[in-house]
C-alpha cells in the first residue's frame, strides 16, 4: 500500500447537491483539466411486494472499505491519465430521491475521465464492503442486492 494519505470517502447521510456543485466549482482553478465525468447514485423507490422503498440505510466495514476505496483510487490513477479524482459514499439513512454515491474524475481529454469513472463505480459496487438496507414506509426492511 502506498504512503499517500487515505482520503475520507464516507459521508453521514445523503450527499447534497450543494456539496456536488461546490466540488465542481473548486476545479475552476485547475485549468489543465478539459473534461470531468461524474457519476451520481440515487436511491430509487423500488416497489417490492407492494411496498415502496422510502430510504436506504447504509452500513460498512469502515476499516476495510477505506482501504478498498484507497486501492481502487490508486489503481485508477495508474490505469488512466487523471488530473484528479473524488469518491464519496453515504453511510446511514438516505431517502429515496437523494444521492448516496458521488464519483468525480477529471482529465485533460474526455476518454480518461469517462472510462475511469465507470471503472471506479463498477469496482465500488463489486468490492466495497458496504451494505444497504432498503426501508419501506412501515419501517420494515430487506437487505438490498446489487444488480451486476
Amino acid at each position, binding site marked *: 500500500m502506498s504512503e499517500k494519505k487515505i482520503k475520507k470517502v464516507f459521508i453521514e447521510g445523503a450527499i447534497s447537491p450543494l456539496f456536488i456543485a461546490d466540488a465542481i466549482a473548486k476545479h475552476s482553478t485547475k485549468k489543465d483539466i478539459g473534461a470531468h465525468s461524474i457519476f451520481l*447514485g440515487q436511491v430509487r423507490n423500488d416497489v417490492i411486494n407492494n411496498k415502496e422503498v422510502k430510504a436506504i440505510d*447504509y*452500513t*460498512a*466495514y469502515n*476499516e*476495510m*472499505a477505506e*482501504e478498498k476505496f484507497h486501492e481502487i483510487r490508486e489503481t485508477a490513477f495508474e490505469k488512466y491519465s487523471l488530473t484528479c479524482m473524488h469518491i464519496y*459514499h453515504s453511510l446511514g439513512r438516505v431517502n429515496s430521491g437523494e444521492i*448516496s*454515491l458521488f464519483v468525480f474524475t477529471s482529465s485533460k481529454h474526455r476518454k480518461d475521465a469517462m472510462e475511469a469513472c465507470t471503472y471506479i*463505480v463498477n469496482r*465500488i*459496487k*463489486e*468490492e*466495497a*464492503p*458496504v*451494505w*444497504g*438496507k432498503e426501508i419501506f414506509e412501515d419501517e420494515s426492511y430487506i*437487505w*438490498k*442486492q*446489487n444488480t451486476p
Partner: protein
Amino acid sequence: MKIKILAFGIIADITGKSEWIIENIQATDELKKHLEILYPRLKSMKYAIAVNLAITSGNFELTDGATVALMPPFSGG
C-alpha cells in the same frame, strides 16, 4: 486463543449482534461449523470471510487476536 468476530448486513440480523469474542477456534472452517450450529440460517447464506481485513478462500488458519468479519454480498452504491 481469542478471536474477534464482526458480523455485517443480514448476517448481523441472524446472529443478533455485530461484534463479539470467541475462544478456541483454530480455523475458518471450524468457525463456520460452530456458527452454523448456533445460527442454522447461516447454512443457506452466502457470505465471505475476511481475516484481518483480507478476504480469505478455503480453510484459513486463525491466530490469537485475529479479527474475523462475516460479510454477505455487498450492496453499496
